[in-house]
């Protein structure tokens, strides 16, 4: 493995992993509170579109990100109403959300930008970390990214600390493990879960905006291309632990970065072999890791508080 390969691989792993990491961290919090949201894909799409719209209209990538997070919260609110207010099946509601997001983002894109043209927006600046960024090999691999990459990594640590070391984290986990017992101890289960699902929506929106505003600077329909579902898988691989989720998304990003770099080196092998590599590794990892994993006790079970 030469230097160019290594630098490209690591840098690419962060770029490919970051949008998934944002969404997966939000989904981790939602799932630890007991709510499964499989509509992440749709929320990311809406975030991707509204991010571009916001950045284009205001001239600021950051305002675009903020608008994407607000739109993500609005999408998640639909999930809250369906699942927490009307106690519908969370998987069915989530699938609905995915399709809704696909339609809304595509429709919005045409209303705002029309057809046959690609809009350019301002993008996030790269951070200059002084001597760190100028290190040989290590610099370009780790310390020359968009600022959002570092935000996402820091957020993984913060989420871990919040969930395991604070009182509010304990409340969230107890609501997710056993809502009946949590309710009996005086915790407002519905309110707690609502906040967690909305936070999950905000982060999925941010993940979508990273993809569109951060990486491309424009929106195209269905651009999330399954990353929302990968994010849900990464929550499982990470065993509902934010630090595990961080490792899972970077591992997946690295596997994907590796396959696109191996393809041109072995032109005689069918390209499908490389494209499926990250997924094969992911399934393999799941088999290996699942022996010790335990999902939150109340996950995906509708809960109605006693009157």
């Amino acid at each position, binding site marked *: 493995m030469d230097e*160019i390969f290594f*630098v*490209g691989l690591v840098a*690419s792993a962060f*770029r*490919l992993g970051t*949008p998934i990491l944002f969404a997966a961290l939000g989904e981790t919090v939602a799932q630890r509170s007991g709510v499964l949201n499989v509509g992440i894909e749709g929320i990311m799409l809406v975030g991707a579109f509204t991010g571009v719209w916001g950045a284009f209209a205001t001239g600021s990538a950051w305002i675009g990100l903020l608008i994407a997070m607000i739109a993500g919260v609005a999408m998640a609110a639909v999930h809250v109403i369906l699942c927490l207010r009307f106690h519908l099946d969370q998987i069915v509601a989530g699938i609905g959300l995915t399709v809704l997001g696909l339609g809304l983002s*595509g429709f919005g*894109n*045409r209303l705002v*930008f*029309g*057809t*046959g*043209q*690609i809009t*350019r927006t301002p993008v996030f600046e790269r951070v200059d970390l002084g001597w760190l960024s100028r290190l040989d090999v290590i610099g370009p691999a780790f310390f020359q990214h968009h600022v959002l990459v570092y935000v996402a990594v820091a957020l993984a640590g913060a989420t871990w600390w919040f969930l395991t070391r604070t009182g509010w984290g304990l409340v969230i986990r107890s609501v997710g493990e056993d809502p009946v017992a949590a309710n009996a101890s005086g915790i407002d289960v519905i309110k707690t879960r609502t906040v967690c699902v909305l936070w999950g929506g905000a982060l999925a929106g941010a993940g979508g905006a990273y*993809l569109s505003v951060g*990486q*491309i*600077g*424009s929106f*195209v*329909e*269905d*651009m999330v*291309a399954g990353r929302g579902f990968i994010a849900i898988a990464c929550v499982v691989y990470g065993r509902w632990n934010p630090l595990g989720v961080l490792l899972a998304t970077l591992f997946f990003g690295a596997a*994907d*970065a590796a396959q*696109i*770099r191996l*393809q*041109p080196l072995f*032109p005689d092998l069918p*390209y*499908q072999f490389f*494209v499926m590599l990250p997924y094969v590794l992911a399934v393999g990892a799941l088999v290996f890791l699942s022996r010790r994993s335990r999902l939150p006790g109340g996950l995906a079970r509708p809960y109605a508080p006693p009157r």
Partner: protein
Amino acid sequence: MKKFLIALSIAVVTAAGAGDAAAKQLRVALVLPGPITDGTFNTAAYQGIKAAEKKYDIKISIQENTTFAQSKSALLHFARDGYDIIIGHGFQFGDPAKQIHKQFPKTWFIVNTAKVSGAPNLASFDNRWGDAGYVAGAIAAMVTKTGTIGHIGGIPVPVIKEYNTGFERGAKRFKPDVKVLSAFVGSFSDIAKGKEITLSLIERGADVVTATGNESVVGTIQAAKEKGVMAIGTAFDSAKFAPDTIVTTAIVRFDINIDKAIGLVVAGKLEPKNYLLGFNENGLDLAPYRKFDSKLSADQKAKIEQLIADIKAGKVKDLPKIQ
């Protein structure tokens, strides 16, 4: 039961068709694999049908984002609805059209970028993508400074493979020691992955890149723009996305395909065969060099012009075989 229902629907449709024969306006359906906003393969078809709508007395209907799995049901839907012409825009519509065309003898099935045909009502229009790739490769070989160029494909369907082969052969014609890197996205639409793959080829030294696909092409153009390396567009002239880095575009004239198809049906002259369009038939074209006009020498431009003339005259012997 199913056969009966199909027969019944044909009967109903035929009866309805006969009823308003007085106002015989052709109904044309265009079934697209991606969104009309992709800025390449689907946008080109969309603009083609829009132009045809103005030119002919037709009523058009467009279905977008048709997945591989929905290909057949989309064609069936329009056929049962009694459309006169159904255009499937993509290789993947070939097999489904072949399976069902005989059940709807009053409808013309036309498939783009495929080579299927069947009496009495299945025709296809294909372009010589290999020739387009050949010219693109020749230009890439002339402008590269590193001696490494790259091709990024969406999914290796026949036309993309032909373009790829042509790209490599055209490049080697003018620079035998040129290195051609190639990789596939595994999706037509994943723009972020398209960009990432392009970046990886640029890392390996490619300073001219080209791409085939849908939105994934935009990812390549974006990556080239960001890294300041040259790009050669395909299918649809997208120079305005990145005027400083797009050298030219190997245009595939889907508007000509669609115009020809509808025009022949209107004139009652369409035959159930494969129509293959190249530079000679205006099915391929090269976009103006624009900002690169001054960067290419007169000699280089003359060589490209000569190459296209040679292709037209059938003098280029190693053009990719049509699969």
